[in-house]
């Protein structure tokens, strides 16, 4: 804690996430990180697209994918993006409760998404698409699994924030944290849009 200074409440700035130098650094650094993540997922998409014909007599995309299920998953994730947007708007309004509430909603939606994904993997595995069965299988699980790992991390991160700051109120320290967590969450959604299109829709259609 700060050396011998009493805690005095401060006035809410318009963009609390960028009000301090630490906050601005965090904001910018996190965006750069997302720039790198773009290439990371680009590499995974490339690998998947390069290998998606390599089914080696195992099941292929059109044998497996249930787009209906995936459509629902997409909707869940999209909605969770919206709830996180609401959370940030509430934050800027100084409505800390609202922030926590909408973030919780985001987590719940994220968990639901994960549940579906686990079910999906379980199901595919059941239908003979083991991780090492074919290059297609490996590339598929790696791409979608890495996304899933991101979702898991995002959910845990937000959860930790929610618990840690449940009582603190909005501060100049936690505003950037919530803000970057939300950026991360949107980014996960962006990636999913591509997975939905390139892996699932093209898997069935193309």
């Amino acid at each position, binding site marked *: *804690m*700060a*050396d011998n200074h009493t805690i005095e409440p401060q006035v809410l700035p318009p963009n609390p996430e960028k009000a301090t*130098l630490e906050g*601005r*650094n965090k904001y*910018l*650094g996190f965006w*750069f*990180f997302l*720039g*790198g*993540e773009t*290439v*990371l997922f*680009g*590499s*995974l998409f*490339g*690998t998947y697209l*390069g*290998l998606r*014909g*390599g*089914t*080696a007599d195992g099941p292929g995309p059109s044998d497996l994918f249930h787009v209906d299920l995936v459509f629902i998953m997409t909707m869940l994730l999209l909605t969770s993006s919206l709830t996180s947007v609401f959370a940030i708007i509430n934050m800027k309004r100084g409505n800390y409760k609202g922030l926590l509430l909408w973030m919780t909603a985001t987590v719940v939606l994220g968990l639901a998404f994960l549940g579906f994904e686990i079910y999906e993997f379980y199901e595919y595995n059941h239908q003979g698409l083991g*991780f*090492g*069965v*074919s*290059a*297609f299988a*490996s*590339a598929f*699980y*790696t791409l979608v699994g*890495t996304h899933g790992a991101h979702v898991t991390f995002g959910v845990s991160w937000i959860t*930790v*924030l929610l618990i*840690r700051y449940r009582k603190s109120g909005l501060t100049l*320290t936690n505003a950037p*944290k919530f803000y970057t967590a939300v950026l991360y969450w949107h980014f996960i959604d962006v990636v999913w849009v591509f997975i939905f299109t390139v892996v699932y829709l093209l898997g069935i259609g193309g």
Partner: protein
Amino acid sequence: MSYEKAQSKNVIWDWLTTVDHKKIGILYLAAGAFFFAVGGLEAILMRIQLMFPESSFIQAQTFNELLTMHGTTMVFLAAMPLLFGFMNYMIPLQIGARDVAFPFLNALGFWLFLFGGILLNVSWFAGGAPDAGWTAYAPLSSESPGHGLDFYVLGLQVSGIGTLIGGINFLVTVINMRAPGMSMMRMPLFTWSSFVASMLILFAFPALTIGLLLLMLERLFGATYFGVDLGGNVIIWQHLFWIFGHPEVYILILPAFGIFSEVLPTFAKKRLFGYSAMVFATLIIGFLGFMVWAHHMFTVGIGPVANAIFAVATMAIAVPTGIKIFNWLLTLWGGRIQFTTANLFALGFIPTFVMGGVTGVMLAASAADYQFHDTYFVVAHFHYVIIGGTVFGLFAGVFYWWPKIFGYRLNETLGKVFFWLFLTGFHLTFFVQHFLGLMGMQRRVASYLPGQGLDQLNFISTIGAFLMGVAFIILLVTIFTSMKNTTNVSDPWDGRTLEWTTTTPVPEYNFAQTPLVRELDAFWYEKYEGDGKMKAAEPIGDIHMPNGSILPLIIAFGLFVASFGLIYAVYPLAIVGLIISFIGMFLRSVKEDHGYHIPAEAVKRDKDGGK
């Protein structure tokens, strides 16, 4: 933590927990130098083996391990960390900042690199080092028996994350932490080129991360991406590797270019010629660096259109690089050139690097590359650019910045002996390799048969390597015998940039008052247009400092442990390691730590000289 407590830390604990960019810089330099010696030793062993045809000094398998570890060590554990050392130390000083943007992450980056490097080298004692070349082409790498390549995969993964973190840190530091008046176009070129190199890191390393992830999943978890029988494709690895790998060579060279752009003006006593062209050229090189990677794959059979496009794109890089070369020459033109050791390296760089650069353009001619590829001609090319560029740059940086960092000047006489020996040894070693390659010597051969006309040139090459070895030892001697030269260390070279305005040793807060920058080459401007002192942008006040933390080390150590668990399939160990890391991260994120303040009085006391 309070100021008093921060002052009274135990030395070792202080270094293990430091988040001071200067100390982290020194750590990078020390670790990098160590790995440089290791990599150099490996090179010398290889050269001894290649001294005579059909030599049996080293077995073929061991040779392959040596060559893999030499390349990997030099690139990832020596050259880059040494550059990172200077970047860490100098970027904040050059832009007039008190610190980097993310001190904690900075420390984390260092410890990740160090543990990754150690992990990689543990392989020597754990049944054999990786043996598939630093490029680890699949399926040789994915099917290589033993654990060597597992160490490669995890070692590079861990240290690679460290590098990525470092890159982001530098980017944000440069953008957000510049002193008042220090606009982007007033930044010293070393900072600029480090900034561009950091961008390259940001966009290049993720491709490697994925490459390594795939290789790990294939080797350790039964995935198949490169197994042709199951529909895999081995060329995917090559793309991923080179999409990273080619930008990587510019990551190595750009900061070195930056160092030359500091050293040459200083010792020619002239402003850098064509500053904005230099900045622009750096950006162009960075950009083009992402569009040429397939020039390493001309013989892979991706087709003539692709080859032609990549060939032309590669050649294009000669243009911005040429712009830089001529700007340096014109910086010297009309100057008053002082032949200090630092400057000797910068001057030695120009012809040497141009020779390496033009062979690069020869390699870029795809149809001719069918002859050059994977021969000693390529080995000659890249040592000319890497040693003539990066390593000379590092040595120039060592002699130039040593007084600032370590508080004493390196002996110039010994330094010059070192320079000439190294330069001669270098050209002796690698010039002849151009011919070896064209005369039919492939690279990565554990030996060669007699009667092919390769014997003499190989012998000469090895002698050259010995000279470089001797030179390196002289450098070490120089370092240890110069410690008494502690006078005139604040601004020994009549410097031009902000780092020379600080006192030596540099106080932990760098600048008592943030300087106000009025021109490019801010210090030079104040010396010759002003009163010789920087204007202050703020009154002396309390200075906020971050607290040290042991958590970076713990997080990195956790990954180190987890890696062993993965390599030997002892999953509980892997989980324990990951838990250690996660606890570290968890503590970091839940424990709010706002650092401490150095009271204004203490800053004033420092400034007035007395403690």
